């Protein structure tokens, strides 16, 4: 007679089999049987957060910095609803998460019991799939399938809802069998003919560009290596979305910087004027394309993506290659090398005019800003932070807003999985708990949350988690007392009516740090900034760094409103000439 295990034990046996070493969670009535078993499974360490949203973002940070799925464990009702923001965030940014929720006992489901909610109903649109387990004999299979769904294809969050009585009931444990094919859904769906077509387009291109995104990073570190190899072999320029930063070295000459609404002048103009666009793992997001009718009007477009529904969703493409980036790039490089040995040389000659044009755009120096000796310019703060941390293997998370865009523009990433930011959903409050998750995964590494003072207050309570587990995360707040991006839009589009975007009562962040039991540092002038940053880096404890920056600074360049890529708004000097008016306002 095989041994019988309780549902709660089965949960942990599955986590063990899936090599889960950390889970982020918060206990409550409907998950107590699972929490009761925690002591018997030493290989799974539980990180107690202060709010379930924090558990979700921490699991996201963990997942994005390691490539492994993040796991969170929360209770029914409010526990589940608090996790919804993080699940939606993970769904938008394709982060593999497994969320385990407790549920009221099966006989009480549907009776409006205490802390009951329709968890699978609420999370259906923000997960890849979810399960309500009504029979303990299904539990092991569902748990393993949950990991499979979360991590295969385009990754994303899944949820397993386990009623309390199921956690007590006993069943046999079925261990994990790696199935070859998942539900008949294969992911690589391209042929050699597609690759040959791509090579042919590459050969003919005179004004090509690589446009790469988070899919490269999701495909694993090998995919980034292959991408670099292909970009060097072709000599083509490359730009990246917010989520793709790090898959190609930012300090390389072939890299044009980030594209999109706050992308560089050269990247956006190159996207507009190119004759061949090779999209590798990006999804033509509306922050990238600007006005869709005038998006890159003269180019042949190639789209490499693992998700068939991403193809032709926003932009019609000429060649679609559906498959895992790693596998597609491997085939492409193989064919590329076979087809012509000295091809890359001749091709480089063919695109030399294109590079000249790009250099002209580059000479606009669109990321420049007007420096100051009295106040700290936010861009300057990021630049100094980068200069003082670039020799370390640094992991950066961010909140959402101006600071996020400045970080993307001025912090240079050279490796994948070092940059964790909420792009699709744009969740303020993401960065601090994400930093907690990253630091859990990489205890010896430097982890910095580049934050805004408004965002960071949304999940500030997780500092308490960082202190509890001795996680030396650095919260680098660019404090301008405004919701900066809101203020910027109000200035540019709403006649400087700064409606509710100023926070009239902010906490003293240094005292707050002390209250949490960590270290508070404040920098007020450009002169003292370096010393203060070094002080932060030398502190082996969690730090809240309150960097008082220019309150009026805006984030440029910017694609204004209803305009295509080639009509960007540059910094303060350029602005007077191109005022945003009337119809143009719609897009920003």
């Amino acid at each position: 007679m095989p041994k019988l295990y309780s549902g709660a034990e089965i949960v942990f046996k599955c986590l063990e089999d899936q090599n889960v070493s950390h889970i982020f969670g918060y206990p409550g009535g409907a998950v107590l049987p699972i929490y009761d078993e925690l002591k018997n499974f030493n290989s799974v360490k539980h990180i107690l957060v202060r709010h379930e949203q924090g558990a979700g973002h921490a699991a996201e940070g963990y997942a994005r910095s390691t490539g492994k799925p993040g796991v969170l464990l929360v209770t029914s009702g409010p526990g589940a609803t608090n996790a919804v923001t993080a699940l939606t965030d993970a769904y938008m940014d394709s982060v593999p998460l497994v969320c385990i929720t407790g549920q009221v006992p099966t006989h009480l489901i549907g009776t409006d019991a205490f802390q009951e909610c329709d968890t699978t109903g609420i999370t259906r649109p923000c997960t890849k799939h979810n399960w309500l387990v009504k029979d303990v004999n299904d539990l092991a299979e569902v748990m393993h399938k949950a990991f499979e769904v979360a991590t295969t294809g385009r990754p994303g969050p899944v949820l397993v809802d386990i009623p309390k009585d199921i956690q007590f009931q006993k069943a046999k444990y079925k261990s994990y069998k790696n199935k070859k094919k998942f539900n008949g859904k294969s992911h690589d769906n391209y042929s050699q003919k597609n690759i040959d077509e791509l090579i042919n387009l590459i050969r003919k291109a005179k004004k090509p560009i690589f446009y790469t995104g988070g899919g490269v990073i999701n495909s694993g570190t090998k995919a980034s290596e292959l991408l670099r190899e292909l970009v060097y072999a072709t000599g083509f320029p490359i730009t990246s979305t917010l989520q793709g930063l790090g898959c190609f070295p930012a300090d390389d000459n072939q890299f044009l910087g980030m594209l999109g609404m706050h992308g560089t002048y050269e990247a956006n103009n190159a996207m507009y004027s190119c004759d061949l666009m090779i999209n590798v793992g990006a999804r033509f997001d509306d922050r990238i394309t600007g006005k869709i009718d005038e998006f890159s009007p003269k180019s042949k477009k190639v789209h490499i993506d693992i998700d068939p529904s991403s193809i032709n969703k926003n932009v019609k493409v000429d060649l679609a290659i559906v498959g895992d980036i790693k596998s597609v790039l491997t085939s492409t490089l193989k064919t590329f090398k076979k087809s012509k040995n000295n091809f890359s040389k001749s091709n480089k000659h063919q695109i030399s005019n294109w590079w000249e044009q790009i250099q002209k755009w580059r000479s606009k120096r669109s990321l420049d800003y007007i420096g100051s000796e009295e106040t700290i310019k936010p861009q300057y703060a990021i630049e100094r932070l980068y200069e003082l941390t670039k020799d370390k293997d640094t992991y950066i998370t961010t909140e959402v807003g101006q600071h996020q865009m400045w970080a993307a523009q001025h912090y240079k990433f050279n490796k994948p999985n070092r940059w964790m930011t909420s792009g699709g959903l744009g969740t303020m409050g993401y960065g601090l708990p994400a930093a907690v998750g990253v630091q859990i995964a990489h205890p010896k590494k430097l982890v910095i949350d580049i934050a805004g003072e408004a965002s960071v207050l949304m999940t500030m309570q997780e500092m308490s988690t960082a202190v509890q587990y001795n996680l030396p995360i650095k919260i680098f707040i660019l404090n301008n007392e405004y919701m900066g991006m809101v203020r910027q839009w109000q200035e540019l589009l709403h006649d400087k009516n700064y409606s509710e975007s100023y926070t009239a009562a902010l906490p003293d962040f240094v005292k707050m740090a002390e209250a949490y039991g960590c270290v508070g540092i404040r920098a007020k002038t450009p002169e003292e900034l370096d010393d203060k940053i070094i002080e932060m880096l030398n502190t082996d404890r969690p730090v809240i760094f309150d960097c008082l920056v220019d309150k009026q600074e805006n984030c440029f360049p910017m694609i204004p409103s209803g305009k295509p890529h080639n009509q960007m708004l540059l910094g303060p000097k350029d602005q007077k000439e191109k005022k945003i008016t009337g119809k143009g306002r719609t897009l920003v």
Partner: protein
Amino acid sequence: MANSKSAYSSAGKKQKLDTHIIVVWVDNEAGVLARVVGLFSGRGYNIESLAVAEVDQKQNISRITIVTTGTPQVVDQIKLQLKKLVPVHKVADFKREDKNVIFKEMALFKFVANNGKLNKAFEACKNFNPVILDKTNKSNVIQITALRREIDSMSKNLKKFGLVSVSRTGAVAMTRGSEIFK
């Protein structure tokens, strides 16, 4: 210009809408219909009619037939998004004009009238396989099977014969000939 200060782009050019019949084979499990229907409502797609029932009791497979309208791009998206759902096995898509596909809807009509009108009502239905399911001396219930637009016009035209109540199903579809959709 009420929306002129939006953070998003304004809508592009309007494209032509086509009517499509989408057939989805799914695992008959709890919540599967909600997943399919939720996908439509969540992404702003239309459902004109819906018919669903289990067709394979052994493997618990249900067949969902959805009539929808959309631009070619939207219809493509619907198919691709449906295929991503875990319990979905396969998705077929037919244009309404497709001659190789049979579409049928069933309707039940209740008439309350004198015998003369009831007879005329039955007569009017005769092209659509009418079956009298119930009959009293002042009422009857007639079942017909027909195309959507035929039932639409019938339910309008039969008012004069005492039509008081209409109940109808969504369309179901099947390909002609010996071929089946794989």
